[in-house]
């Protein structure tokens, strides 16, 4: 009784973490992923982890799952054949998109646009029109619509999307089109844009709804299949899927709105990192997940991951909330090269991937990668085995890195140091996007690094950003599964409501927000979350009338009732000033109202690590020649499992564990705390005194 299981399916491995709710005891397992049918890997993982814990799978109540099925469907272009119904005159809404051509001046010369997810051949028009205020300008021509649908049926579509102009203001026509479509093509699932994302902007609303239809059949099939298989080994287990915004959705809601799952995998990492860091006492965090081909970063402020109102996968950007995760093409497999014309050192975005992988894997790769540089530098000792059993070949790494050194006129160690520095800089670029560019000073945040390769770079990244400590969580490779297991059920409802402040009042907004919250709560209650356990937060997106941006501010309903809309405009001005250094004496305008509801997460406590003294020598397993900051050093190598709480690991040092390796640089010390984290600080660390940012600009 009372076990919950977190499952993260990655490209190579499926990670599982089993938690006993009462005691907080955890067991983890790692099994190969099975891309053809991910549920096979999940089931074998469940068997493995239950064996380890010595329990019957029937004792598992909840399975929380982060999945990449939706993402992969988009990336590989293997979604459903989608039909689309638009307003007359808008058939090409996806073809034209925002008319945007990436790549700067002249970028069009090399730009080839990908095809829309709903082919034009499967797009029909409905003769109807609603105004921006929601009035019906022209009624729906139902007869013509039925004729068009009959023709569309011949295209053998698997899903249908309806997205009509101004439906955010009045969804009546969309709903009627759905009714007719269900009559004309029974059995074909129909999504309407005013359900999926009732927000202004026709292209964004359409592409989001189409993306939902596009991934829906595959996600639905996967979830149902997994549910059936789970029912085979466990009884009465509830399956939840992690949403892009870091909340959990019920399996049925996930299957209905899969567009909310596009960042499900990475969101698990962020929530897992948060959970671990909170155990160590940190709530303001920069998270860094270093994988084979890319690095994902995010910012957590006061225990809340920053969200954004869009999700990007490949070249598709949809309006769905997600943890604001930025990705940069810099990972262990990123290839270093020196272009002939400029003689610059570039690292990535090309990657050797898992196959052939870095040169040191001895699987045919000859290009120097970041992992090869880490090997040459001595950060990845030969005794370290990647993914359990892969042997590293140092000579092959050296041969590969030498190519870059020769092109630059540098020695092999110096070239490796260059690769390491450049890739760190690329990661810092992504970290700046989520911090400095959003008005957050990275020096006010701790940095937590995970993924197999994260701890190799953590110390260096913290130093570049001034973000201390550098936190190395226990089991950096299974953090996503931990995130899955510790997350709460969450849902939200939003509505576009464009009104100048002079056209509305606090009372009206209060009423709408409460209505949205009631709607959102229904789903949670169905999931068995008690009403008393639900916490609700309210947000509004607003701007100065005439502006294009929108900023999201949290609304406290009690204050809103008491002081009216001023509560919102004051907060907005403050945020505007923080982000852009000025506020304006202009009228405010509401854009979107949103209510988010959340159940309670599990309150598990990790068992504290056994205490030891300051001296970590008992955990030392050897010594290693390494090259740090341009100098040869001898680093002590430690076994992570043997480290005790209170140990102080002085750099230069290398800490090895099953799925990861950590580097502690000279003049830095890793403090092992009782939650099992290693907290790296510079030896001369003084907490910085922060002066309030100087305000300037015209007011």
């Amino acid at each position, binding site marked *: 009784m009372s076990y919950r299981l977190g499952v993260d399916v990655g490209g190579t491995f499926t990670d599982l973490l089993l938690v006993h709710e009462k005691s907080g005891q955890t067991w983890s397992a790692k099994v190969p992923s099975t891309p053809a049918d991910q549920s096979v890997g999940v089931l074998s993982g469940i068997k493995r982890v239950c064996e380890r814990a010595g329990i019957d799978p029937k004792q598992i109540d909840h399975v929380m799952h982060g999945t990449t099925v939706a993402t992969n469907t988009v990336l590989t272009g293997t979604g459903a054949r989608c039909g689309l119904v638009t307003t007359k005159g808008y058939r090409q809404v996806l073809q034209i998109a925002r008319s945007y*051509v990436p790549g700067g001046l002249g970028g*069009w010369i090399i730009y080839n646009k990908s095809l829309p997810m709903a082919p034009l051949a499967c797009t029909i028009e409905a003769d109807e029109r609603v105004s921006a205020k929601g009035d019906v300008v022209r009624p729906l021509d139902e007869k013509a619509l039925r004729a068009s649908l009959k023709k569309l049926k011949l295209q053998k579509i698997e899903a249908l999307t309806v997205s009509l102009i101004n439906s955010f203001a009045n969804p009546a026509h969309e709903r009627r089109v759905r009714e007719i479509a269900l009559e004309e093509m029974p059995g074909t699932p129909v999504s309407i844009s005013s359900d999926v994302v009732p927000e202004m902007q026709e292209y964004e609303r359409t592409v989001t709804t189409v993306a939902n239809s596009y991934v829906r059949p595959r996600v639905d099939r996967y979830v149902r299949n997994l549910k059936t298989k789970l029912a085979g080994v466990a009884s009465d287990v509830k399956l939840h899927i992690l949403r892009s915004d870091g909340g959990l959705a019920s399996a049925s809601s996930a299957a209905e709105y899969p567009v909310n799952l596009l960042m499900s995998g990475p969101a698990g990492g962020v929530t897992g990192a948060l959970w671990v860091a909170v155990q160590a006492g940190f709530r303001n965090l920069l998270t860094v997940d270093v994988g084979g081909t890319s690095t994902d970063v995010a910012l957590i402020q006061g225990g809340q991951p920053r969200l954004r109102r869009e999700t990007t996968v490949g070249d598709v950007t949809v309006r769905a909330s997600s943890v604001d995760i930025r990705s940069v093409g810099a990972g262990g497999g990123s290839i270093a090269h020196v272009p002939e*014309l400029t003689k610059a050192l570039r690292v990535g975005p090309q990657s050797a991937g898992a196959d052939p992988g870095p040169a040191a894997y001895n699987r045919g790769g000859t290009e120097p990668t970041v992992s090869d540089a880490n090997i040459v530098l001595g950060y990845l000792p030969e005794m370290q085995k990647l993914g359990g059993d892969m042997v590293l070949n140092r000579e092959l790494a050296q041969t590969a890195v030498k190519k870059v050194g020769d092109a630059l006129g540098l020695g092999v160690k110096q070239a490796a140091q260059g690769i390491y520095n450049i890739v760190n800089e690329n990661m810092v670029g992504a970290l700046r996007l989520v911090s400095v560019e959003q008005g957050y000073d990275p020096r006010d945040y701790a940095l937590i690094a995970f993924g197999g390769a994260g701890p190799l770079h953590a110390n260096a990244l913290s130093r570049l950003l001034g973000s201390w400590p550098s936190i190395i969580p226990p089991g950096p490779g299974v953090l996503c599964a931990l995130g899955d297991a510790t997350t709460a059920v969450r849902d939200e409802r939003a509505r576009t409501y464009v009104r100048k402040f002079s056209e509305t009042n606090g009372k009206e907004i209060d009423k709408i927000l409460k209505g949205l919250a009631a709607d959102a709560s229904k789903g949670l209650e169905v999931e068995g979350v008690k009403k008393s356990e639900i916490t609700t937060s309210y947000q509004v997106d607003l701007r100065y009338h005439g502006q294009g941006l929108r900023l999201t501010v949290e609304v406290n309903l009690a204050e809103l009732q008491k002081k009216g809309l001023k509560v919102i405009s004051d907060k907005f001005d403050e945020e505007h000033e923080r982000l852009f250094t000025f506020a304006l004496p202009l009228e405010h305008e509401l854009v979107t109202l949103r209510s988010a509801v959340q159940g309670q997460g599990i309150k598990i406590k990790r068992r504290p690590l056994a205490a030891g003294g300051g001296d970590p020598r008992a955990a030392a397993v050897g010594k290693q020649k390494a090259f740090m900051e341009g100098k040869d050093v001898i680093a002590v190598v430690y076994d992570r499992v043997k480290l005790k709480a209170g140990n102080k690991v002085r750099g230069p040092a290398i800490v090895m564990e099953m799925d990861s390796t950590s580097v502690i640089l000279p003049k830095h010390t890793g403090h092992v705390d009782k939650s099992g984290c290693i907290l790296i600080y510079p030896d001369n660390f003084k907490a910085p005194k922060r002066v309030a940012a100087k305000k300037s600009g015209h007011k």
Partner: protein
Amino acid sequence: MPATIVQRNKKPFTKMKVDTVTIDIIESALRNARYEMDTVLFRTAMSPGIREQHDEFPMIANTEGKMVVGQFGSFIWGFMQGYDGTVEEGDIFLTSDPYSVNGAISHANDWLMLMPVYRGGRIIAWSAMFGHMTDVGGKVPGSLPTDGTTIYEDGIVVPPVKIYKGGELNKDVLRVVLHNCRLPEWNLSDFNAITAALRTAAARCIEIAERFGDDVFYSAMDAMLERNKRAMRALIRQNVPESKQYFEDYICDDGLNMGPYRIKCSMWREGDKCIFDFAGTDPQSISSINFLLNEEMFKMFAGIYMIMVFDPQILFNDGFYDLMEVRIPPGTLLKPLKPAALSCRTHALGRIFDILAGLLGQGNPDFMCGAGFSDSPHFMYSGYDKNGEWYQLYQITFGGIPGKPFGDGPDGHSLWPSFTNVPNEFLESYFPLRIDIYETIADTGGAGKNRGGNGLRIGYRFLEPGEISIHDDRWLTYPWGANGGEPGARSRKLLQRSDGTEQLLPSKIDHVKVEAGDLLIADTWGGGGWGDPLEREAAKVGFDVAAGLVTAEGAKRYGVVCNADGKIDEAATGALRVKMRAGRGPKKIFDRGFETIDELKGRCKAETGFDPPGQPRFTKWAAVAAEAMAKKKGIKAA
């Protein structure tokens, strides 16, 4: 008198050798800073032209004012020559006068701001940015009068002024400027947004200098310029022949019923140096289609074009400027003399890219693109609504990207970097209009192995009485096809009155009165095709037909026979292709869709509904003044 730079710290920077990795790190940090400037601006600007459409350009330059990252090349040196005053810490400069900065901005709508970045009492860099204001006053809403004949009619022209002195805003000057604009709140917000972006860049430069030291920062920027020069030298040597290449293109008319105007350019290489000579270009126009082309900016265009075509990895900056020489005779359409009107320069500015494609392509036909959507057509609509409130819309629209060696041109897209359309639901929420049609027009993209993109059709339904303006081109000449590709279709504007009458509107016109219920159907033009249309896979043509982007009739231009659903008749297609191959002449590098201008004018009325424009008349004073100026400089005038 050039400006006097005041620096507390007189110590010169020490040039030192910086290792590659450090240069790369500084390069990427500066590149990030430049993108951060965009982000700050987009999010806070009010003018839709900046905010939604991204008509703005940031730059970071080294101590000497050479652009290290950015897009349009540096104008700082020119600016300093034209400013008679001091440059001090905390200063920010503003100008909107193209004539004071030798065309670094090319009309008065563009507000250019410039900030020296000081650290330790010395200038370590410059940040600069300009953006297009929706309105700067003058004779028409939007400040782009088609029939303007001097710059004074365009709107308020701000000479280089110190708008922040030592960090303090010169409120009086700003008040005067804003007072002359129709939408002062927008201008104020955009002004603040640009200021914030400049300060962001300054903060980033200071951070980099703090981390690496001033001398390393200084030397690394130098090395970045040198690195770019090395790369460009190789590109120029490989791709620009020593023999003269020549190309010409046209602006269809000047809004005063005269045209077409000719832009001529020759290109050749002497050693490492690439020379562009615009001799033979028509004299400056008496209307506002003149484009004051800054030589450095043209170098940038040419350089970017080469880089994009031949090696997109190269980072762009001013380093290669010595390797190019640009000769533009004074008194021409591209170097008009003050006070010629400049506001509607967008057509000539765009056409420069077709000229570049034509010039650079001849040496390497495989890399040549078709003529494209080399313009940014404007639509403006303004008036008082039923509540007595002023509304004013300025919108840039898009069209067909040309076919190119790497693939088809997208339909209804922008050639301009980072421009996006304004969502129609947004327009309908804020302006008294409905967009009844928003689609691309089948068959308007030039046929080719790679198809040109289709032009865009927007149906504007007006809900209040008001006035509209249209600025477009390519209604007479076609966007040409390349390497056997066919030209794209022309643009066209049709006004359907609510009483059922129809009226074709000229391509460039202001002050057209509209009533509630009227519908304007505004068609832009298609991109030129690339390569032999008979070599396009029949299946691709069938796909386009099924998608409604090409009609079954239009498929015949590709020698493809199919039904309306795109189902291909293989046998008939084979036969048609054989017949077409046999019946045509040798492959043309350029297909302009006409033989001579006279021949084109001869069929103008029948094809467009308009009488052909007359021969342009030019002003005498400009010719005389240009002659005198040329004599002084020892060069040829128009």
